């Protein structure tokens, strides 16, 4: 394990000792995450050593926990729920969950059980929150202060949307958007569009989108959107609507606030406006996952992950001197496709002293991870390599 979690682990152990004491006198036990906060009940099954609890609905994966992992285990995947997860009862009979389809020649409703007989595709995608890297901005943006851990690489299985479209006679003319609606409960007194999770993406995304019921070989956990989740490869997490209950081809974008004014990238201090770019396509990005603080002299394994965004990551370079010089770092393990990330490893011989380690990725369309990323009001989309660099002290 790297040294960054080491510091937090000491903190964790202090909390853990308190918990053991509580257990001895018959009090309920809780599982503490890396920051000493208990895991919320609905994600009590997560690996506490790998998680940081920002709030009940936002849990980050510890940076070092990713290591050289190609696929992020379910119990280490970050959580960002825009609304509290629905009751556990919705996954009691997963195949009975019903979805309505609109904006097609033959609109209909189908259960998950029926969807499973239409077609199956398995894809690997990076799932990443728009605000991943918010902590690296300096303008005090509101929202969870994610560092690198609002991202994971997931293998999804589900039915291709294009197969459903074909089965239902094609998309009605003039429908420019693919709109997914989440099944979260909206409290009384609120018009649905105020907080409903409903996102629209360009209609062409139907060619690669799937409706997934499986996550890394297991039924999708409730916390991650089970029984059914819309997966838009290459797009930020918010577009991957959980508890999908409606998939509609629509002429206009959803009227929901989360679409109209939420998740829009704009200059600091500017009000949200539907004309601003929506958080759709992810960008080329990489970061080191270890070592993060300290290393012993001699040979050290430096590792991280690199992603291409919407086109395959083609190469990643590593700098041991804060970006003065760069050398290509080899990928390790199989290529899971253009939307997955690829781990990289370099064995380096580091002298005593402090070294600034940085990584820089490039994708198949030639986009290069930039040195810096401009501040924006909601602190979205940070992929600057300098902010993601780590100072490692070798002794």
């Amino acid at each position, binding site marked *: 394990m790297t040294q*960054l979690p080491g510091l937090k682990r000491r903190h964790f152990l202090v909390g853990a000792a308190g918990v053991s004491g509580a257990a001895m006198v018959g009090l309920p036990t809780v599982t503490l995450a890396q920051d*000493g906060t208990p895991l919320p009940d609905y994600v009590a099954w997560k690996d506490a050593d790998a998680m940081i609890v*920002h*709030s009940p609905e936002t849990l980050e994966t510890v940076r070092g926990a990713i290591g050289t992992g190609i696929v992020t285990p379910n119990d280490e995947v970050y959580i960002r729920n825009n609304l509290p997860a629905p009751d556990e009862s919705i996954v009691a009979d997963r195949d009975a969950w019903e979805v309505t389809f609109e904006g097609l020649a033959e609109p209909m409703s189908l259960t998950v059980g029926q969807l499973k007989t239409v077609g199956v595709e398995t894809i690997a995608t990076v799932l990443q929150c728009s605000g991943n890297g918010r902590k690296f901005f300096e303008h005090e*943006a509101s929202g969870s202060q994610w560092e690198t851990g609002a991202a994971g690489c997931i293998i999804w299985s589900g039915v291709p949307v294009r197969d459903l479209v074909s089965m239902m006679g094609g998309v009605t003319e003039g429908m420019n958007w693919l709109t997914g609606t989440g099944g979260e409960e909206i409290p009384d007194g609120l018009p649905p569009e105020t907080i409903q999770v409903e996102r629209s993406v360009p209609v062409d995304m139907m060619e690669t989108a799937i409706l997934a019921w499986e996550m890394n070989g297991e039924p999708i956990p409730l916390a991650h959107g089970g029984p059914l989740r819309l997966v838009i490869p290459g797009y930020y997490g918010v577009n991957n609507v959980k508890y999908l209950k409606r998939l509609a081809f629509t002429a206009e974008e959803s009227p929901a606030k989360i679409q109209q004014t939420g998740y829009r990238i704009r200059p600091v201090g500017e009000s949200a406006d539907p004309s601003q770019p929506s958080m759709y396509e992810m960008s080329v990005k990489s970061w080191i996952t270890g070592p993060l603080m300290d290393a012993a002299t001699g040979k050290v394994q430096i590792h991280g992950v690199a992603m291409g965004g919407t086109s395959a990551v083609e190469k990643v370079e590593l700098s041991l001197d804060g970006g003065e010089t760069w050398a290509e770092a080899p990928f390790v393990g199989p290529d899971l496709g253009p939307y997955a990330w690829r781990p990289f490893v370099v064995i380096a011989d580091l002298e005593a002293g402090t070294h600034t380690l940085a990584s820089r990725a490039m994708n198949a369309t030639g986009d290069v991870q930039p040195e810096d990323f401009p501040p924006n009001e909601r602190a979205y989309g940070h992929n600057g390599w300098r902010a993601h660099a780590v100072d490692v002290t070798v002794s």
Partner: protein
Amino acid sequence: MPNSVASLAAAIFLSFAAIPAVAEADVDLEAGRAIFNETAEPSCAICHSLVDAEAEGEVGPNLDAMEGLDLDRIRAAVAGGVGVMPAFDEVLSEEEIETVSAYVAAVAGKDANATGISN
């Protein structure tokens, strides 16, 4: 901005600092409470818990238990929205946003039992 022990230690400290970010004496609590519970449309209380306002909403974060609740972040959240939380600069005046933000900054964190984990 590479990682440092200092920033990590600061982050750990801050996550435990559930202290009001603004002194109550400098804030019009009554006006802030009224905006929180009534003027804002939809009302902040529908979604958020806040002991001082007797609010028990469970959709959004419990404001008595949130990390990093300083006035700048609260103001930015109210004006520009966060996630599904709508931007209130469409329905509240700048002055109202300032008043309700200062109110939350002054009173949040008074619930000794709040852990940030409500479910």
